């Protein structure tokens, strides 16, 4: 019985909790991509850089607050700076929409052209970030690092295996729940949300019924800005901020959005968790888990690892390819918010 509990704790500690927090970050990112795809109808390659920009502004203000000795006690100071980061990200999104994307929207350009445009935007934001903050790795989480340390847990329960709970993981999960609840409430219950859904379903019909497209697009960029900034900051808080990482993060995010069914917000969230869990589960070495579970006579000798951790990124694309082959529309049929 104790062995069984130990094995469960191993799974919790190394797969489930990291999976949920990484999945939450991917889900928020994928939700942003999905919004752009459903309303503006293009694949936004700049999304990773928008996330990075939000995280950068948050870091700058975190430093400012730290230098002024303003803090949140046991919570990281970044939470205090997050609203400013969100506002800056929204402004960035709206500026780029006004000066770049709007023109192509009025021209009714094909999605591929808009995707190319977003690559140009990606380069510009990328340069701005590197010019302002450089390319160094930055750790900006302060406050209490652990809610529960592995040792504490061992003492508390008397089990062999410890369960560590980082505060950044708990914050990630809580904020994600709040933000997702708010987004879905907004889409389902408010008038603006309903008009956005109508717009994404059938643009012409929505225009005929008097929905103002500029207003819908404006709201979309606000939501995208919030989601991107929060996702970027949480990722940076959890792992540490590195400007280059966010370009690599775009691909798992796209994978999540497509696996879930691009255009479907619920699908994007589910896709995020699917991708995160598969990345972690496929590359985790299960030896410890089996040592507890199986009698010692048939214990595994190897690591019992399906793929080495080097292939973490490859896993998400492989899943993407498989999903596209078997069910091109994703798990939840997309196209409508």
């Amino acid at each position, binding site marked *: 019985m104790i062995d069984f509990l130990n094995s469960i704790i191993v799974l919790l500690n190394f797969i489930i909790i990291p999976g949920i927090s990484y999945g939450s970050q991917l889900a928020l990112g994928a939700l942003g991509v999905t919004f752009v795809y459903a309303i503006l109808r293009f694949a936004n390659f700049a999304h990773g850089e928008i996330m990075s920009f939000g995280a950068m502004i948050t870091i700058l203000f975190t430093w400012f607050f730290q230098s002024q000795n303003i803090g949140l006690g046991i919570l990281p100071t970044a939470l205090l700076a997050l609203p400013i980061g969100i506002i800056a990200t929204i402004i960035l999104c709206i500026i780029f929409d006004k000066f770049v994307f709007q023109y192509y929207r009025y021209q009714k350009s094909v999605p591929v052209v808009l995707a*190319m445009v977003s*690559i140009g935007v990606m*380069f*510009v934001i990328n340069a701005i970030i*590197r*010019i302002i903050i450089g390319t160094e790795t930055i750790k900006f989480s302060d406050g209490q690092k652990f809610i529960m340390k592995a040792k504490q847990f061992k003492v508390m329960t008397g089990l062999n295996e410890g369960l560590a709970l980082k505060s950044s993981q708990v914050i990630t999960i809580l904020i994600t729940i709040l933000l997702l609840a708010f987004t879905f409430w907004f889409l389902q219950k408010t008038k603006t949300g309903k008009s956005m859904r109508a717009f994404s379903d059938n643009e012409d019909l929505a225009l005929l019924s008097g929905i103002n497209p500029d207003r819908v697009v404006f709201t979309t960029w606000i939501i995208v800005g919030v989601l991107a900034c929060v996702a970027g900051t949480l990722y940076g808080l959890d792992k540490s901020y590195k400007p280059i990482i966010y370009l690599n993060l775009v691909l798992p995010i796209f*994978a999540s959005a497509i696996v879930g069914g691009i255009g479907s917000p619920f699908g994007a969230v589910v896709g995020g968790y699917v991708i995160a869990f598969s990345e972690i589960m496929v590359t985790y070495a299960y030896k410890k888990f089996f040592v507890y579970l199986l009698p010692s006579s048939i214990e595994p000798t190897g690591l019992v690892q399906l793929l080495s951790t080097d*292939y973490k990124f490859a896993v998400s*694309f492989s899943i993407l390819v498989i999903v596209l082959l078997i069910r091109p529309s994703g798990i939840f049929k997309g196209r409508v918010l």
Partner: protein
Amino acid sequence: MMKFERYEWVAITIMISLFIFVGFIQGWSVSLVILNMCIISAIMTMGVNISWGYAGVINFGVMGFLAMGGLAAVLVSYPPIAESWQAGGRGLGISFALLFVLVIAVMYINKTVIQKRNRYILNSLIIFFGILIIRHFYLNATHNIEDVNPAIAGFLGGLGLPIIFSWIVGGLFAAGVAFVIGKVALGLRSDYLAIVTLGISEIVVSVLKHEEWLSRGVKNVIGLKRPVPYEIDLQNADWFINLVTYLNSSKLNNIIDVSDRQQVLNNLIIDSSGIFVKLSYAILFLIVMLIIFYFANKAQLSPWGRMMRAIRDNETAANAMGKDVVKQHLIIFVIGAAIVGVAGAMLVTLDGLFTPSGYRPLRFTFIIWIMVIVGGSGNNLGAIFGGFVIWFSWIEAAPLTTFIINQLTIGLEPTNALKLHLLDSVPYFRYLFMGLILLLILRYRPKGIIPEKVRHS
């Protein structure tokens, strides 16, 4: 034979004069270094242009195909390592043979077992256990290979042939990978296809990074043999010394003192040997570029090229006229990828080393796409022009930015924090330039600088 319009001559003149300009300002060596990379970039751009410009097939997997070309350069030119083959050759052979058997078995099951559920169960069982067995042999073999002299070897090595053959092999490698990708992914909508090819190219690079027995992985392969002479050999060759003396005879004759003259001559020989090597590369690359350019143009003007344009402009109509759209898309995707693969092999040839971790999408996929868009998709000369201009500005952005920042902050003290920070971040301004160039071109000249010629026959 093709004829150039006037503005095309202007473009060609601009390209040539840019290099002459740099040659006089920054020296001929710098100019030739940039020229070599420009030619390789132009070949990559032509590869992408063939699939995107002719047929509208998007290919964001440039990085992966380049890496395959690079792998070909290693596998063709590196001398074989006998100990590694002894240590793991048999195990690898067994595991690949087993893999082949596995594929055959799965194909056999797919053909014979009709019932869908049974087929799924049988297939997954056979694949699961097959992979377990193959893994056993494979991991043993690769482990043994990587243990052979890890500091300098640790991989299988290559065939030890002249590296120039790898340009063709690189094309074939890339074509093979492209065939598999195309079979899987073509037929998806264009933006999905972009994401999928981007993802698969990441997979290709991560395989090259971590399969050390094949490519030495992140430990890199250095010291690949050159197709052109080495500087040190040139400096000791009589004919080269005579050539340099002959070319600079007027300058040398003015110096009366013998030891001074010898000193000047030695410096000249060292300088010229570097330039000679770069020039030989440039000539080799130029030959390849012109060959590809010639055939690309020929193909574009042929009935086949016309069919490709028809498919690009209206897929449904082309399909209705009896053209096999899926097959043609696959063909053109493979051809485009093959050309990119050739460029990848040439890139490694030029550097003399293979560094899998150097393949990053920003540098090797998106920049190439900017070249295509800026140059003008659908026009081969435009592709070459785009490759030249964008690579040129990518390199020359740094000196230009330094100059601009110094001019703008001329009133500030040299120790001013803002000025120092800006000067520190000079290398990042090139990304800003690239983004702005792309955005401006897409806005004001969406067909590119040298647009596709509309032909009415």
